[in-house]
């Protein structure tokens, strides 16, 4: 399946990416080639199969819901690019 430039732009927006104009054409072409190759999955007979794969852990994993000490903001926020004491700072959301 080919993908159009406007579709790539829409998907990039959903993924919060901004593709440079100079890269767009190439990206559209490369994605088109990849998706075209992936189309071969249509030939596989998957009737009646669930989407669940048994590759990983097959049993549900439970544990007791016991509280443990939190590392606290000094650790949690240590790598924040911008913070104000115990809060992350982001550009204003409500204008």
């Amino acid at each position, binding site marked *: 399946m080919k993908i159009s430039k406007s579709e790539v732009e829409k998907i990039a927006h959903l993924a919060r990416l901004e593709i440079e104009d100079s890269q767009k054409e190439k990206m559209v072409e490369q994605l088109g080639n990849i998706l075209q190759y*992936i189309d071969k999955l249509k030939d596989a007979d998957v009737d009646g199969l669930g989407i669940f794969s048994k590759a990983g852990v097959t049993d549900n994993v439970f544990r007791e819901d016991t509280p443990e000490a939190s590392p606290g903001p000094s650790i949690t926020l240590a790598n924040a690019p911008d913070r104000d004491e115990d809060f992350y700072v982001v550009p204003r959301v409500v204008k």
Partner: protein
Amino acid sequence: MEYHELTIGSAIEKLACHEISSFELTSAFFDRIEKYEDGIGAFITLDRDGALAQAKKADQDLAAGRISALTGVPLALKDILCTKGVKTTCGSRILENFIPQYDGTVVSLLKEKGAVILGKTNLDEFAMGSSTENSSFKITRNPWNPDYVPGGSSGGSAAAVTARFCCAALGTDTGGSIRQPASHCGVVGIKPTYGRVSRFGLVSYASSLDQAGPITRDVRDAAILLNVISGHDKLDSTSAKATVPDFTQALDQFEKGSLKGVKAGIPKEYLSTEGIDPEVEKVFHHAKQVLQDLGVEIREISLPHAEYVVAAYYIIAPCEASSNLARYDGVKYGFRDRSSDDLIEMYKKTKSKGFGLEVQRRIIIGTYALSAGYYDAYYGRASKVRTLITEDFSKAFETCDLILSPVAPAPAFKIGEKTDDPLIMYLTDIFTLSANMAGIPGISVPAGYSSKGLPIGIQMMAQKFDEMSLLRAGYGFERNIGLAQKFPDL
């Protein structure tokens, strides 16, 4: 014997009997790194002070008779494994200054057993790539020939082990990222069974496929490391509660005839794959004979859905990646673009400037394949095909203990040769992706050289949690393949 020639196994012996100290060994590796690293580019970060402090501590422990499995042994770690207080970049601008506040479980386990961590090795950004050319910081060169790639994504770890900058290293493998660089560099690499090794602190790329594992100079070293890093971890709910056998013990009891009666299958679909390099075929054929001489019974098997593996993988992995990498939004850690005062714009500029093109490409494929109207056709279908692939392996293992194949269809390629067409690069993963898709273990063991002198490995895969069979077969193979030169002259 010179320091840099020591494997984990031989270093442990010499350290235990005080023939050498960890400080001397660690310093010798740093001297060697200083001398040759510019021409290789294996490391993103070196932690000389930290490592020498760990080495001194190890020497005290050794002097006091407190000897653990890895006391004083210098190792390197792929820079996608979180190390407390030491920068962990994932080869990405977006994490250029990220300093983890905790150690990943595999890192804690190595440290608990006394290992000395020399530094963090280069990789394709977020482990997405097969050549280590996608790192934001540098390319890594193949120590056998600097014009060639070392493979990827754990190319830095494989190159560091091959250049003998460390006794051994850890890599991670989502679609072949341990086995393929091990093959291209002529060293041993194991991708353990999914769940065998904790993923806590391994920065996620595709969570249902990622596993950390050893890259070592020989099979016994891989067993030593696997002993240390395997086991259940309550911090990773997908880690398995399976019993961990002593992987080294079985190798130490190995004798001639130990592989007699082992059944190894060769998938007929693999051998009819288009584009297998004749030199790889030749090495594979010879490897098969060596195994036969050891008493291994070779038979043809079938993995009927092998042709869909690459396509299914390159949907599933990007889907998981698009979800996992959404966290790099410039708020909690890493790079933030400060040129915009709008939140959505900030996210977009941060990600677009922080991520390289291959990462952005996979995020877009994943987002597309998971988006409304396409989910069933792509992710749903790929996931069902994954079930078929897994069933193929279950059926195959009813008639054999091991599955043999090449690791990659060709020896290492030249730097820059495949960077223009991502699809061509994806297709080089054809033999390694299946083990991740089916969650089974796989090993790459050196088997020969191309006419240009580049190493070529063979791959063996086994049933879930049967790393033991891989190690035993690999060990027997390694001792009988008779390679002329194990390491390159730098």
